[in-house]
């Protein structure tokens, strides 16, 4: 492995797993996603243009690995309005709300999840997110709208905000 990529992997591994966890909603699955994406990056390293800053490329690969994974397992994955598990109150309304939002996010379809993570974690523009996901800006807009609407519904059902 190229020394620059090795340095990047060592330095960014925890944050990449965290990023993937936001995308797929499962920490163990996230680690597998990051590994798969980095294997692809390693194999394609000679073709990567910005070798000093491979972060964007790696994140794109993780997003696509997650979408590909979803395509493979979608027959087994069921999207539900119910939160995967109930949070445990820690005495802080802010923390409770954030935790509830993350769990609600995990209940969204993977493509909506990816759009929201790109837009609100990576602060990508609609055009940038469209480029990463290989779809139109209109699709990003509609997926963002649907995702946020769904989050509101789940959130309201959970009555955390109240």
């Amino acid at each position, binding site marked *: 492995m190229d020394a620059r990529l090795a340095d990047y992997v060592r330095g960014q591994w925890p944050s990449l*797993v965290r990023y993937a966890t936001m995308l797929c909603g499962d920490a163990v699955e996230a680690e597998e996603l990051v590994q798969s994406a*980095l294997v692809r990056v390693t*194999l*394609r390293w000679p073709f990567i243009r910005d070798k000093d800053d491979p972060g964007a490329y790696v994140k794109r690969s993780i997003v696509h690995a997650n979408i590909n994974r979803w395509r493979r397992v979608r027959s087994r994955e069921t999207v539900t309005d119910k939160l995967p598990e109930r949070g445990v109150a820690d005495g802080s309304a802010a923390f409770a709300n954030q935790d509830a939002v993350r769990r609600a*996010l995990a209940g969204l379809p993977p493509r909506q999840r990816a759009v929201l993570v790109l837009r609100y*974690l990576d602060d990508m523009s609609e055009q940038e997110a469209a480029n990463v996901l290989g779809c139109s800006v209109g699709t990003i807009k509609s997926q963002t709208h649907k995702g946020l609407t769904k989050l509101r519904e789940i*959130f309201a059902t959970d009555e955390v905000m109240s």
Partner: protein
Amino acid sequence: MNDIEELLRDALQSAPTPETLVGDPVATIERRAGRARAFIAGGALAAVAVITTAVVVPLQLTKQADGPSRLGGPTATQPPSPRPSSTNRPPTSWSSPGVLALASGGGSLWALRADPNSQSGQMYVDRLDARTHARHGRWAVQAPGSWFFYGLGRVWLTGGGDGAYPDGSLQMVDPARASVRSLTATHQQLSGVAFAGGHAWVIAGRNIWEVNTDGAHVGTVALPAEADQLGIAATDSGQVWVKVGKRWLRIDPATRRVVDTVQWNGPMLGAAGGDAIWTYDGRLIALSPALLHQGTSVAEGSRIAVPGVVTAVAPSSDGGLFVVALDGTNAESDPTNLYYLSERALTGTAAINDQTPKAENAAASYLAPDNTGGVNYTDANGAGAHWAP
């Protein structure tokens, strides 16, 4: 920005970092990448093996008095004799790292290299002498390029349709015309290529593209499958098979339709003579997939005992077989060796054992046999190497 957007942003950016299970991520990624390279090479052989001149395996044919010929599998296990002249010579390296892929055909060795100074994905296809590795020609191609084949007198390079390159790409180098033709598949991944009926058959997303020798897309075979395509191979008899999920589908080049489906989960490792394709299922097997309808024992020809998972095979010019296999069961720690089975070993019941000539820990990818009984390959570091067992 409204309440939920603010809350979502805060929630994402304040998410805790999960505990990771991987102790040394760099070592883990390197191990997996090494295995992936080997599997890519195995897929490439599905095409490369078709155009090499040597018949891969002398399958045993038993003529039954009351029926058609059928493949007869071996009945007893005996260790193969070592190659009489074998000295088990070590491999030699003939290039520094930077060889992305190799293929053999047309009397030459073909190497794909990246221009290390290019910011635009510039790559080169080099025509090399298979023994001296002297360069006799060079053609410029562009990234993406992940799969590399020689067939129909041309070099074929496919890739893309992924996170780095949203659109798939096929580039065809025609050495006789000194030309490079290219095709683009919008938002589709182009990968494996097989050659049959004078055309190339290219995995394109969930379809198979038929491409002629001018590099033109002339037909499409739609596959009735939801699972990803995992490989394509053409037999020496001209059948084209595609691995989709846990099934192998046969497509008819004439009608561009799927004409047969069999259940088989093993990988496609390359043509194995006649209607057979090399696959792995605990042993290395020359499988005639169409005969699976009559039972596994009928469909399986040569069955070779191997020490571990087989990732690639290639016919040697002297009638033997090169095999890349894990030496053990632990993919994380056991070495991946390159073995040579002589023609004599293959005619009986073959097994890879302590007597089998091998290049230890070669981690060979992109096997490209030469015309003198040796093989070129890329090693774990991406350097070109040659082994003459």
